[in-house]
């Protein structure tokens, strides 16, 4: 035990990125990736709460078959805004912009991202996009569904389509800039010795995610822009009344939006790889397969968008191609699931909260992904398309998958981010509640979907009520389960137990600096001599450099290379 104390300096006394400077200005003008990550964390949580509030209204309305709580116009706005906010303002930026922003430089041993100013800019762009979108919501809302299909959105809707579209357009650039920053950083700023195959899988996942952000987002940007102009000028290329083809819009929309679902899940997979390896103290099984499967998902993810158009009057032959490719893209996901499972074999598995979330992820993602295969199977999708089966499919992946990964990751790195521990007991309890509530919410929706209940329905035939009551009950448990971490995480920022530099005793670079880290992350540039997930006795997984009140001059000559 004694051995550790020499490396673990208590947090409060030292200078770190949080107390390095004070005042609002020092936060709003910061170029430190860690502070920007916190700015993102705050704003993303805000949008998540709004999106969750909309979800609660959806579930309340659907408690009874009649449309009695909300008017149909309001209901349409509620689910549209739930979708828009959750997708564009919560899930897409969630892991990359908070955990990714915080950890990419730390994990590769860099002082910051390659373009700190652009990083800050991306947050302001996100904020601007958010404000424009909130304006659209307050001014009267949007009712097109998050998919904005023409010609409803261009000609028939009486809602604030242009403002909402503009919000998404602006927000897209924040995503592009984040992706650009990550790609350049990972290419050019790795510490000496940090070769590609020593990178933690979290980095591989973010690299793959960034590729999609770079290559896909511009297409949705131009598509939304053309849509907005089409609506304003009453002329264009999508509306059949103007000689256009509405299916072209769908192609362009999904060219981005399908790959975007991998923007949403890949970072989550990166988090899970970290959690599974680190909480079982095992190197990941089949490292290179897990790493390359991320890239494979990013590349093949661009080839399958047409599976959203199986019943949209797309040519049946194109349907054939897209169906085939959709099945092919499932394989890299399968590889990941199997490798995670195999990693646990003969491990030393702890039951800390992050690990509970990780285990939940694997199970729920499997269900979500496998039900994606139902939808990729042409004949079955004809029946299931636009029913609650689809709704259940994507919530299983996005909530059961990514949201759990996000929560797991937040708990895992919380001591590094804040310098304080979260309360473990509450953590485990809420993870359990979330898991139960989640399944109760969305499992019945699969059944309702196959029974034929269409989505985006404000009122529905009474025979579907059973499933909806179950679902609404589950949603309230889920909401309660999410409320708990919200409270205790905030509480712990002030009152939590002080965290050590390496509270979980792990080899990753981010654990070899203080908690919270100093502004430039490491006192000296680390030199990496160990592979990712190469576990060693705790006293060998040393902190790089030495942290104290006075600069550690004597250390800088011979960096502690911490043989793992």
């Amino acid at each position, binding site marked *: 035990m004694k051995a550790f104390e020499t490396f673990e300096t208590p947090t409060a006394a030292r200078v770190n990125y949080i107390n390095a400077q004070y005042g609002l200005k020092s936060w709003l003008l910061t170029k430190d990736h860690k502070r920007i990550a916190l700015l993102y964390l705050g704003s993303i949580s805000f949008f998540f709460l709004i999106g969750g509030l909309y979800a609660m209204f959806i579930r309340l309305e659907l408690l009874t078959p009649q449309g009695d709580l909300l008017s149909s116009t309001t209901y349409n706005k509620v689910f549209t805004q739930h979708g828009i906010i959750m997708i564009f303002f919560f899930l897409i930026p969630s892991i990359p912009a908070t955990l990714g922003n915080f950890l990419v430089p730390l994990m590769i041993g*860099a*002082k*910051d*991202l*390659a*373009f*700190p100013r652009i990083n800050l800019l991306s947050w302001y762009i996100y904020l601007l996009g958010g404000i424009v979108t909130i304006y659209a919501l307050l001014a009267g809302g949007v009712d097109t569904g998050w998919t904005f299909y023409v010609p409803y959105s261009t000609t028939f809707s009486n809602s604030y389509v242009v403002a909402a579209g503009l919000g998404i357009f602006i927000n897209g650039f924040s995503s*592009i800039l984040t992706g*650009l*920053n990550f*790609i*350049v*950083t990972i*290419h*050019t*700023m790795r510490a000496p010795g940090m070769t590609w195959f020593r990178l933690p899988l979290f980095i591989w996942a973010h690299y793959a995610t960034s590729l999609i952000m*770079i*290559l*896909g*987002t*511009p*297409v949705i*940007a*131009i*598509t939304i822009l*053309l849509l907005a*102009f089409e609506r304003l*000028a*009453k*002329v*264009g*290329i999508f509306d059949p009344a*103007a*000689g*256009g*083809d509405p299916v*072209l819009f769908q192609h*362009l929309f999904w060219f981005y939006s399908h790959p975007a679902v991998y923007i949403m899940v890949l970072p989550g997979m990166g988090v899970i790889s970290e959690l599974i390896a680190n909480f079982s103290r095992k190197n990941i099984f089949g490292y290179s397969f897990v790493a390359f499967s991320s890239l494979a998902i990013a590349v093949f993810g661009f080839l399958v968008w047409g599976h959203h158009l199986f019943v949209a009057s797309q040519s049946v032959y194109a349907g054939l191609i897209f169906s085939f490719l959709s099945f092919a893209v499932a394989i890299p996901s399968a590889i990941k699931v199997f490798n995670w499972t195999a990693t646990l074999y003969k491990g030393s598995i702890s039951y800390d909260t992050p690990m509970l979330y990780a285990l939940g992820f694997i199970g729920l993602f499997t269900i979500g992904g496998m039900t994606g295969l139902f939808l990729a199977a042409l004949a079955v999708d004809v029946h299931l398309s636009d029913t609650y089966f689809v709704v259940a499919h994507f919530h299983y992946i996005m909530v059961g998958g990514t949201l759990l990964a996000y929560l797991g990751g937040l708990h895992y790195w919380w001591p590094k981010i804040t310098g304080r521990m979260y309360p473990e007991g509450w953590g485990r309890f809420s993870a359990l509640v979330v898991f139960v509530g989640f399944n109760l919410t969305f499992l019945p929706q699969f059944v309702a979907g196959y029974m034929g209940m269409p989505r985006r329905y404000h009122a529905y035939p009474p025979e579907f009520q059973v499933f909806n009551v179950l679902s609404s009950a589950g949603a309230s448990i889920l909401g309660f389960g999410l409320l708990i971490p919200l409270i205790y995480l905030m509480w712990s920022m002030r009152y939590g137990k002080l965290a050590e530099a390496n509270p979980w005793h792990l080899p990753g670079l981010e654990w070899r600096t203080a908690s919270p880290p100093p502004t*430039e992350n490491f006192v000296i*540039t680390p030199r990496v001599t160990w592979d990712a997930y190469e576990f060693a006795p705790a006293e060998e997984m040393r902190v790089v450099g030495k942290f104290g009140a006075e600069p550690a001059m004597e250390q800088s000559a011979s960096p502690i290379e911490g043989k793992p």
Partner: protein
Amino acid sequence: MAEGLAMEHEASHPALQHHFENMEQQREAGTLGMWVFLVTEIMFFGGMFFAYTLYRNQYPEAFASASNHLDLTLGTVNTMVLILSSFTMAMAVYFAQTGKRRGQLIGLTLTLVLGLTFLGIKAVEYHQKYVDKLIPGKLFPGRPFDSSSVHLLPGAAPKNVEMFYWIYFAMTGMHAIHMIIGAGLLSVILFFAWRGKYGPEYHSPVEITGLYWHFVDIVWIFLFPLLYLLGRHLSH
């Protein structure tokens, strides 16, 4: 004082940012960043190029009719102006690399002037379209789109002529916005070049702006034949 600071990176250049190890890394990051950005630009224009391709194949007569009405002379002149500006930009980068301040200033100024010339000519063309009532939709009160000034080839529907102009304005407009941003960048670079900031060790801002400018040129290299030329032969 300066020596003290240089302790961490030996021979530290004043333009070196704190989070980079050395100038080489900083330059590499900057260039790579611009290339990655250009990738996003290619995809951005790609969506519009696709829409063009699709509808040109669907309404060849209408697109040819509308295209024939564009001013080929101005289009050609503009193409040459832009290519020349790309050349002067390349020369500016050359003079930055070789550390010749005067050359840089001349190159950048010429590039800027040629860019503005391009925009000016474009404005003249846009004005002609306005006069001919060829602005799609009803953007200007009293001047809704009216295809009567266009000679319609057999089989061309006015509605689809309007669609051509919509695509024309969307694409050239987006291109012009990029030119304006480029001109802004050039002005900033010109200012620093005048202050003598760029030389053999440090010139990546010039280089990066150059990459952007050439990219905008390339977009036009495609826009010009697609919008102005294809279909000319049908009018005899």
